[in-house]
């Protein structure tokens, strides 16, 4: 469930040349249009992702009600599990809260969880992979064995261990997901670095006395950037699904914070037959966003890897 996308990209992409584009550099609109025409699916996905960001940022404006408020009836009791109606377009949850507002605010958490965990994970992985691949030797050996050990321990055991000891919170969930991403990312980066190092321009740069840092930044990093970007985009989607899985196991974002994963795995799953709308709406939200991230990753990979360019 967790690692397939990383593994699918293990083969490093060494570009044989730069992408040649029929528009003037600096002309952003033309660039965007050119990209959209070449990769319509990717462009659509980019729009969806943009939409997600907008919803997340404007949540207080877009949500019709307070996502934490229990809406009460005339007897002072919460309006539990109402089907979608005019007053509550997507229904209410078992505590009487408006589902639509919770989904809108849920976009925030999903975005934060996705971005933060992927950022931290890929950053950590990149650093480890760079160090490991560039300097090789004992350092490489030590780091790689550490990576192997972390990858060999099942993610569920890791997640349970972290949550049991450190407690459950959004921060710890981000930490756990980052820990899942980092080893795979480090391997990809290391592979890329090793492949790049075979090229003579690296030897040449070292021969004329360029410092390792300069070599890394000028020659290695640009080639690493593309695969990492693709991985990161896809992992953004995966992170959201992992959060839902953690919620299922009781290790997800603690309430009352609304997250799509918790809504899907908690009250959504528990009331699947009596109130299916509780599961359908967060489920659809998750699917659309993950779909968009995956397609975006596909499009990026197609664009950045010249081997896959169409005839």
């Amino acid at each position, binding site marked *: *469930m*967790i*690692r*397939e*996308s990383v*593994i*699918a990209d293990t*083969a490093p992409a060494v570009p044989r040349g730069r992408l040649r584009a029929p528009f003037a550099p600096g002309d952003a609109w033309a660039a965007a249009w050119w990209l959209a025409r070449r990769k*319509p*699916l990717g462009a659509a996905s980019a729009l969806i992702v943009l939409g997600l960001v907008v919803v997340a940022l404007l949540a207080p404006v877009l949500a019709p009600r307070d996502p934490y408020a229990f809406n009460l009836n005339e007897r002072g009791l919460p309006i539990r599990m109402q089907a979608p109606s005019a007053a509550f377009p997507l229904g209410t949850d078992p505590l009487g809260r408006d589902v639509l507002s919770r989904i809108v605010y849920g976009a925030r958490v999903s975005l934060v969880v996705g971005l933060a965990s992927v950022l931290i994970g890929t950053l950590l992985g990149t650093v480890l992979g760079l160090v490991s691949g560039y300097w*090789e030797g004992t350092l490489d050996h030590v780091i790689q*064995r*550490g990576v*192997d*050990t972390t*990858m*060999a*321990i*099942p*993610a*569920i*055991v890791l997640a*349970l*261990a972290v949550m*049991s*000891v450190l407690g459950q919170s959004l921060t710890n969930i981000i930490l756990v997901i980052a820990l899942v991403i980092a080893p795979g990312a480090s391997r990809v980066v290391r592979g890329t670095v*090793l492949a790049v190092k*075979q090229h003579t321009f690296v030897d040449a740069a070292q021969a004329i006395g360029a410092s390792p840092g300069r070599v890394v930044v000028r020659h290695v990093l640009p080639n690493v950037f593309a695969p990492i970007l693709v991985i990161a985009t896809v992992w953004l*989607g*995966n992170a959201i*699904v992992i959060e*839902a*899985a953690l919620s*299922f*196991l009781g290790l997800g974002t603690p309430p009352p914070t609304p997250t799509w994963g918790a809504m*899907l*795995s908690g009250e*959504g*799953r528990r009331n*699947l*037959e009596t109130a299916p709308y509780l*599961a359908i709406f967060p*489920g659809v939200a*998750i*699917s*659309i966003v*993950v*779909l968009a991230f*995956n*397609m975006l990753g*596909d499009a990026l*990979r197609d664009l950045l890897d010249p*081997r*896959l360019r*169409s*005839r």
Partner: protein
Amino acid sequence: MRTYVARRVLQGLLVLWLVSLAIFSLVRILPGDAVIMQLDQAAAPSPETLARARQELGLERPFLAQYRTWITGALHGDLGRSLITRRSVTSELGKRISLTSHLAVMSIVVALLIALPIGVLSAVKQDTASDYLARFFAVLGLSLPDFWLATVVITFLAIWVQWIPPVGFAPLWEDPARCLGQLLIPALIIGARLAAVSMRMTRSSLLEVLRQDYIRTARAKGARERAVIVRHAMKNAFIPVVTVIGQQFSVLLGGTVIVEFIFLQPGVGSLMLDAVLLRDYTLIQGAVLFFAAVIVVTNLLVDLSYAWLDPRIRYR
């Protein structure tokens, strides 16, 4: 080549030892222990009784002593006894491995049956409507959480069809009809995810192969397009696909937990989950060690196949 293999094997053993150390320590940090988890809610034991129970399970001995006992046993194939059931960990694992292997193999078969044709189609008709549609459905398989799909399937199967996969595992050679009936639906759910990954891999690797020189030669020689694809391209394109599948096997072992949970299939994944929840140290250690061994071996085989394919990598 031989030194490379030897080196990789040694590295693998080192990783296994590190994993054993890591998991042994990790589980003992978790709050609670097997004694507490087994108690009935109404039980009202005194701390002395609890201490005595812990002692019976060997949990009061010093850390290193416990580790030494366990690891020496493990090296002889005895992974100890479960703290909860008091049965041998090896035999517990053995029973579960049968089911998980069945499930993994069936999932892979399902995934390949879906992924290969669609992947080929998608590559051959790159950037056309068929390609987009195929990729869309592939990615859909990745977007829906599999545990959620499992719940939906089991709930609505029961309501609409009045049938759910039977509980009670029988291996394929004992009762093929029951085994298939039991595992087909979970395999479909798990396979859908795997199909998505494999499909994209098939597509990209086939695309890459199709640009190779020998393909151009075949076309120049006048071979029909279908012969080009089938005879020349596909064989080479499938090598990376096979390695991906190989890597996925280890993911399948641990990643099917939740589906097993819902369909009440006792596989290795749910064994691990239960063991962690019950703080059954020996069982967790045994299961994780097994899991790690599978990953190490699979990685080794994959790396070896890469080395065999690309001589440049060998000298690293």
